[in-house]
């Protein structure tokens, strides 16, 4: 036991610069029984972390479950057979009611970008909350302008007019409204398997049956998904793009309001768009007078590593960019950025968002941008993400269960299948492995229309040690399947 901890510390010291904070003390969750597994795969251990959460004295899991059942939505679901009561978070780790530490491989759904309770972000929030939480944009306050300016500086071309909302759904709703007003057309094209939100317009753009209710969702055409793994044209982006042209030619007046897609589909299971697809679609949409909307809610803010924005990896410049999730490290904030020319359409009438752009959330947003820059989180996402992907690919060589490993930076997916040729989704195995990994101390997400894709979108301060732990845990669990 001691030897093992010693070994961990040594490797920790070599990588000290990657760790936040110092790894001198081990937290109690490292002290566990060591087992010998059948094929020599040892139970992996969490990297050390110098933080102990305050003792939790709140309601228990059972109490909370009972309350949820009585007072909250019946469609509210939770992960795991035994749901986790998460009470504390620090950087890339979460703590349950017993003080047990977990590696957060999901980031509250790609939302906690800097790290749970990152001190700079918390400081910005607390300081601003003490001055003024809310007054609306009817009065001036420097926070909103400062953040808008900083955000605009991260975007190319003339994308520099910012609208603040409170969520990704609100941002996409606004983007769709702007596109329809600007063009005078109603038709919007989105991709099958996309997720864009849950309000009336965005539910139309969202294209997975389990998220679509039986209500009117007008004016959206769903194009073939350029899915390199499951799509009928494999990785031939241009063939898929032809489907978009077809929809325009046959399903619309020939003129459209726009096209919207995520750079990498999140809810849909970390599906990367086949190479060559977006530039080809861009041309079709422009020819039809439409606007190109890039939904960066999950792929934005340095997550993909190689670029700050997911769309940059495809060589296109959108007309409208929507963001949320990572933008505020968890604070309720969304944004739409577009050009002055396009933004002008909203002047025809009044558009207002009461909470949008409030000083606290915009101060948090600005702090997030500073942290990403100061701590080199984009570079970290690239380095650690590539390392993690490499290790996952090695795991794929080991286990037939892994059908595909994909994604960029710290937005990675692992698709499980029971048959590599037929690509039969391994739904039960996915749930099982995810549950077992939780028992080992790793939290990841799930997605894909079949629910058979692991979504790995941790806080961007994730380290190589964390990556090792995650893969080792997956390895260990799969060896037992």
């Amino acid at each position, binding site marked *: 036991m001691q030897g093992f901890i010693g070994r961990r510390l040594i490797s920790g010291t070599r990588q000290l610069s990657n760790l936040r904070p110092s790894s001198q003390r081990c937290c109690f969750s490292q002290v566990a029984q060591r087992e010998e597994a059948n094929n020599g795969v040892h139970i992996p251990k969490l990297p050390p972390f110098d933080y102990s959460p305050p003792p939790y004295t709140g309601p228990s899991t059972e109490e909370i479950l009972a309350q949820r059942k009585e007072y909250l939505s019946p469609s509210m679901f939770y992960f795991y057979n035994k749901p986790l009561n998460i009470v504390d978070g620090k950087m890339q780790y979460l703590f349950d009611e017993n003080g047990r530490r977990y590696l957060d491989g999901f980031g509250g759904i790609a939302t906690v970008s800097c790290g749970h309770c990152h001190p700079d972000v918390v400081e910005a929030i607390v300081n601003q909350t003490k001055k003024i939480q809310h007054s609306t944009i009817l009065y001036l306050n420097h926070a909103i302008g400062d953040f808008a300016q900083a955000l605009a500086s991260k975007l190319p071309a003339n994308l520099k007019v910012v609208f603040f909302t409170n969520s990704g759904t609100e941002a996409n709703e606004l983007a769709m409204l702007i596109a329809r007003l600007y063009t005078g057309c109603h038709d919007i094209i989105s991709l099958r398997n996309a997720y864009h939100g849950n309000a009336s317009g965005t539910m139309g753009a969202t294209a997975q049956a*389990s998220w679509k209710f039986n209500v009117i969702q007008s004016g959206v055409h769903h194009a073939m998904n350029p899915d390199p793994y499951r799509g009928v044209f494999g990785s031939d982006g241009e063939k898929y793009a032809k489907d978009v042209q077809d929809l325009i030619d046959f399903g619309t007046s020939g003129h459209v309001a726009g096209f919207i897609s995520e750079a990498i589909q999140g809810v849909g299971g970390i599906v990367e768009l086949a190479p060559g697809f977006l530039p080809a679609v861009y041309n079709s949409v422009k020819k039809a007078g439409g606007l190109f909307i890039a939904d960066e809610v999950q792929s934005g803010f340095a997550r993909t590593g190689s670029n700050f924005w997911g769309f940059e990896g495809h060589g296109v410049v959108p007309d409208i960019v929507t963001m949320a999730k990572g933008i505020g490290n968890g604070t309720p904030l969304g944004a739409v950025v577009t050009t002055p020319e396009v933004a002008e359409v909203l002047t025809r009438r009044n558009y207002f968002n009461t909470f949008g752009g409030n000083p606290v959330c915009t101060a948090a947003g600005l702090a997030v941008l500073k942290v990403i820059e100061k701590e080199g989180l984009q570079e970290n996402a690239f380095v650690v993400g590539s390392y993690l992907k490499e290790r996952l690919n090695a795991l794929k060589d080991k286990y037939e269960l892994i059908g595909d490993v994909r994604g960029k930076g710290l937005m990675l997916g692992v698709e499980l299948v029971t048959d590599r040729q037929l690509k039969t989704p391994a739904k039960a195995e996915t749930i099982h492995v995810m549950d077992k990994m939780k028992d080992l101390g790793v939290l990841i997400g799930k997605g894909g229309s079949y629910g058979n894709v692991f979504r790995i979108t941790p806080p961007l301060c994730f380290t190589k040690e964390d990556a090792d732990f995650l893969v080792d845990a997956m390895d260990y669990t799969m060896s037992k399947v």
Partner: protein
Amino acid sequence: MAFQLFRVVVRDLAKPKIGCARVSSSFSTLQPNASDEADVPSLPPFNYEPRPYNGPRADEIFEKRKKFLGPSLFHFYQKPINIVEGKMQYLFDEDGRRYLDAFAGIVTVSCGHCHPVVLKAITEQSQLLQHATTIYLHHAIADFAEALASKMPGNLKVVYVVNSGTEANELAMLMARLYSGSLGMIALRNAYHGGSSNTIGLTALNTWKYPIPQGEIHHVVNPDPYRGIFGADAKCYAKDVQDHIDYGTSGKIAGYISETIQGVGGTIELAPGYLKMVYDIVRKAGGVCIADEVQTGFGRTGSHYWGFETQGVIPDIVTMAKGIGNGLPLGAVVTTPEIASVLAQKILFNTYGGNPVCSAGGLAVLKVIDEEKRQSHSADVGSHLLARLRDLQQQHDIIGDIRGRGLMVGVELVTDRTEKTPAKAETAVLFEKLRELGILVGKGGLHGNVFRIKPPMCFNKDDADFLVDALDYSMSKL
């Protein structure tokens, strides 16, 4: 000036105030042109010094806004105010000047700016866990939902937590349509319910409606006692609803939604008895009744906790936002288990909705409202304010109507009391004058001629007196 201060201090000693210490007045009670205007009303004293402000000034911020925040972003006042700090019912500008906040960031700051209890909840929770989503458990959302449900009558006890009023109303419409199996929604002309595609449909003020498809919405005659064609005759307005159903729909509708007191529309109360009649009509047509409590909820009306309670009805769905979190981006929809069950057909998820920080803030707000008896305080101060305004109406012809309840008050200005011609220009002038005197009110109504007075609910009688005195003073100078 000394006499002025003396008078204020004596009044302070005579009547205990809630939430303000009674020590010497800060510099911000001194009026700039006081020396030649002996009767200029002055702010009640307030024992708090704002922090010195070294950030960007108004002009610089305004330029930045124009460049990075789009041409559609509007603002109040010819020279927009740079608000840098807030405390209870007061706001401070870049020069440390104090203002009475009579609009509460649009009826949003319910407990008071930076209220210590709410602040503590936010600060503490932000240091533990900001966000993890409801895929894991956390006690904050459950505690908040339970506390909110306990304030509701009937079987209204399933809570959906969202991030804004728009999101709440979108969700309510979805529920209504799924539950009823019908499409048609009924909303009142002059209503405001949100800025997204579906809620723009419900919203019924042309300045807020973009030319996009808005689905099957029927806008009925507004039961406006002051300007409505039937005066205060609820029955006639209710018949209009029945007409719309009988002639404009299949006979069955998804639902009806209204604010109990229209906010953006200019603090319009519904003709007495209207809502009860309409609820019956709507239910007979298979529809659900949605009460938009985004502005009227949380004790603001004084006599009751929820606006709809003043009308003797129990809705099927209630939507809330604004005051619910004292400014935190938080909204909620509360409904019955029966209606909630329709959402279980598919997955409906809200990433930020119910996050620990906003839920903790929301719970703190509920506690403050109860412990500090904000509802009865709103009733008390509100009736005092309304009484003084009605007196003012006797003295100034320009005041066409005074209306509202509790701390949700409207003052409509007209150039002709019989014609009720909106006094737009005068409203704009008085709006600026009030700002100069240190009072920030709101403006509303389709013609922009209604002052909306909806302060943080710690607003007291001295604040009310100051506001009315300032209005009196400004009107006498018109």
